[in-house]
């Protein structure tokens, strides 16, 4: 299965991935309307260690702790992709408690959210990858 991987050698730390992610998942057709002058809730985030930057998003683990731990039964694996049912999620953040990658977080309305590979939004494939100017994030089989 194709997943998102980061190549930290090439990451500039420009955070375009965060903006593209938030826009792709906003459901809006204009980036300005989606992002301007408001807090954004991207599902990928840039971390920095000793001058090196890299993007972190859901690893779509084979044996995911978030799925096993969700108190609402709102997280499931569908064809290898780990998805959160926002309608069922009560925002307890047990997934945040257990995710060893720090890849799940509360979204705008309090429900948990994470990368779902943009498969169900208008982008159709990871927007972070499509918009990365330096190919520092890739979507591939490993």
């Amino acid at each position, binding site marked *: 299965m194709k997943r998102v991987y980061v190549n930290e050698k090439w990451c500039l730390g420009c955070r375009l991935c965060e903006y593209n992610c938030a826009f792709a998942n906003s459901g809006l057709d204009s980036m300005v309307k989606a992002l301007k002058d408001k807090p954004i809730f991207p599902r990928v985030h840039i971390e920095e260690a000793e001058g090196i930057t890299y993007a972190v998003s859901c690893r779509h*683990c084979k044996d995911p702790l978030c799925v096993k731990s969700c108190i609402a039964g709102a997280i499931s694996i569908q064809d290898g992709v780990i998805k959160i049912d926002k309608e069922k999620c009560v925002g307890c953040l047990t997934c945040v408690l257990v995710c060893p990658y720090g890849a799940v977080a509360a979204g705008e309305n309090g429900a948990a959210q994470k990368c779902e590979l943009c498969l169900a939004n208008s982008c159709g494939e990871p927007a972070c990858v499509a918009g990365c100017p330096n190919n520092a994030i890739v979507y591939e089989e490993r």
Partner: protein
Amino acid sequence: MSEYVIVGNGVAAAGCIEGIRSADTESSITVISGEDHPVYSRPLISYYLEGRTTIEKMNYRPADFYEKNKVKVIYSRAEHIDSKKQTITLTDKQKLKYDKLCLCTGSSPFVPPFEGLDAVEKKFTFMTMDDSLALEKALNPESRVLIVGAGLIGLKCAEGIAERVGTVTVCDLADRVLSSIMDNECAAVMQAHLEKHGISFMLGDTAVSFDKDKAHMKSGAEVGFDILVLAVGVRAEISLAKEAGCDTDRGIIIDETMLTTVSNIYAAGDCTQGLDSASGEKRVLAILPNAYMQGHCAGVNMAGGKEAVTNAVPMNSIGFFGLHSITAGIYPADSEIYEDHPAGGIKRLYIKNGRLAGYILIGEVDRAGIYTALVREKTPLEEVDTARLRLSPSLAVYKADIRRKKLGGVV
């Protein structure tokens, strides 16, 4: 072909079903469900009262779950296990044979024998969907509610009903709220927040006896109420296992494969006493993630596969009126403690023997799972960047090669 029987129909049972089916798609599975509902998420009962979920959304699995997994559900109760003949008798005298049995009997509210409790008309426990529906019927905007117990159950109940009643008072013999998961400093932060939202507390004090609508407290005080909620604690349901010959203590004793001390009988979830790897002791770890993981592990092993739960630790994520807290591990008194107050909240890290023994975060909880992983995996802190660790949880705490491994391949 084997006959699998699961006693109980909660989250541990769901995990057991999924564990069995990961290794054996054909053999028969029978679930004995004491409650008259398909598997639902018990921790959501307070969210239901608060209007943040619905009865339908509380279903833990889709409607076709049992059918898809070829599971027969019998809505009855198990009365007796004959571990020699490997049979189980239900309350309706129906007898089932098992090759492998899993006890997912959960726990029940513990109600101390208070003097005068019989005279209290509107009294409730708060554990099941039926408890929640019964309590809901009694609520009205003028109700004065007294909750005995300031633990997870009592306080989630308080939050759930706060907007639907007149007053909520919570008492507890402990001198702080959430005493099972928080230290004094953090409990004080959460208590202040709860008080801001109208919850009153009587701590270090508890009800000793009741009149019809009045509690007599240990301190001599009297508290009038219309509705009484008893959330003193829970006890593992061990009687069936005990009678079947399984070793029991506060829970059913299990090994790392979820096997009890009787062959072909496994146990999982809140009824068990298994290894808490944070303290190194066998303890009842009555938390939902643990129930699922134990159930899954039991199921795999029942079906002839191999799985073990070796790194269960106490851990909780719980929020009240918009303020989240995440905790994991243990808080040894002789730890080195690191405290900070990011974004008006509180964070306390307990470091002992070069390991992160436990932590408490209130407010800023992003990426807390990275701390949890350090606790669960007992990562030596010499292998991580401790200055960053203190600052905030991120993968930057790991050395570059470890971090690249985490982000660079299938995990």
